[in-house]
């Protein structure tokens, strides 16, 4: 015990000391590596790597032309470092699988009857009519906002993760305002099917480009009609049908994140509901 507390104090001291020394040697805030004038003479259409000496400058300077996406962050997430995104989607899938596995026995132990609707009024229990109706009305709007974020990921701030997370927060709203479905098993099956589907689309698109290389953006200059629209370089309003496979990847991630997070929320919430019911019984 004594040795442990001394060791932990020492390690804490060391970590903080190292960190303070480290930040005093780092570049000052606001002056990262790279060239400030990356956009000088930018309208030349050949690949231009003069004046570029870091990875980020390359993305800023050539990202828009190479991927056709106005949002450079989206082009990094879904094109240049799409493999990381695949890994991240794997992490989410992994956690969903683990939570389903860990809670499987607990959720299956006793048959549970969810009496969510009050038989007299027809509205959910525990919540006033205003809350439940308000949640019910807000849910489509939250979904619409999430879908907007997903669909416009390559034009404006947003993308698969953000949109999926916003949609999943809608699910959370429905859950806390008691609109939980009675057919939890069916819900669960459908959700996990769509989650797998989203991931399969993602990795399938990766395999589709394997003639060149895995996750190659093969639609970027495939056809101007289908997701290959050539955009003006520099500031522009942006078009939905540009950027190649980027919007599809974003959509796949959106589906995966929405259904994955929803599964996590539904199973945890279901467990808590069940415990309450058991408590009330005894």
């Amino acid at each position, binding site marked *: 015990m004594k040795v442990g507390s001394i060791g932990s104090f020492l390690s804490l001291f060391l970590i903080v000391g190292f960190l303070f020394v480290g930040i005093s040697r780092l570049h000052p*805030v606001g002056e990262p590596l790279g060239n400030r004038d990356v956009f000088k003479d930018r309208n030349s259409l050949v690949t231009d790597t003069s004046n570029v000496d870091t990875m980020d400058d390359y993305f800023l300077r050539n990202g828009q032309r190479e991927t056709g996406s106005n949002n450079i962050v989206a082009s990094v997430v879904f094109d240049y470092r799409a493999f990381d995104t695949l890994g991240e989607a794997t992490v989410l899938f992994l956690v969903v699988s683990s939570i389903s596995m860990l809670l499987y026995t607990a959720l299956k132990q006793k048959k549970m009857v969810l009496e969510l609707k009050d038989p007299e009024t027809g509205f959910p229990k525990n919540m006033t009519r205003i809350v439940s109706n308000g949640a019910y009305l807000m849910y489509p709007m939250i979904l619409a906002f999430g879908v907007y974020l997903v669909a416009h990921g390559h034009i404006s701030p947003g993308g698969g993760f953000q949109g999926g997370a916003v949609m999943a927060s809608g699910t959370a709203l429905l859950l806390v305002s008691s609109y939980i479905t009675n057919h939890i098993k069916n819900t669960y099956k459908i959700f996990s099917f769509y989650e797998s589907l989203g991931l399969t689309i993602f990795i399938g698109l990766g395999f589709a480009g394997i003639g060149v290389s895995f996750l190659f953006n093969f639609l970027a200059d495939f056809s101007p009609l289908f997701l290959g629209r050539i955009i003006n370089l520099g500031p522009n309003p942006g078009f939905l049908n540009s950027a190649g496979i980027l919007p599809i990847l974003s959509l796949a991630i959106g589906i995966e994140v929405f259904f994955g997070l929803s599964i996590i929320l539904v199973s945890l919430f279901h467990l808590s509901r069940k415990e309450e019911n058991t408590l009330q019984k005894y």
Partner: protein
Amino acid sequence: MGNYFLYVTVVLLIFIGVTALLYKKNLIKIVIALNIVESGLNLFFLTLAYRPGGTAPIFTLAPGLEELKMVLPTPQALILTNIVIGFATSALMLTLAIMTYRNNKTLDIQKLRGVEDHD
């Protein structure tokens, strides 16, 4: 310290989080502490990418090319990944904490310490 206050915030956040990780005994409190450390890391990466007076790396509605100065895009992309990973980690840890509570009726590390001595 002048220019370094964002870095200092990062270090203090990590310091607070690690202190709590070492000295807190409650399983859920530990998860909160871990999330605070992760927030510090997120802030660290975004601070690395920051350029004062710049714009977000999005060309829609950006000002003209002449004075365009953008923040670096890669750290933002990485932090997106890290946020989702952090959420996933804390969801798993909370589930495990719930299972621990169901089986042992306690969330205290010191009471759980006897757990490993069994045959």
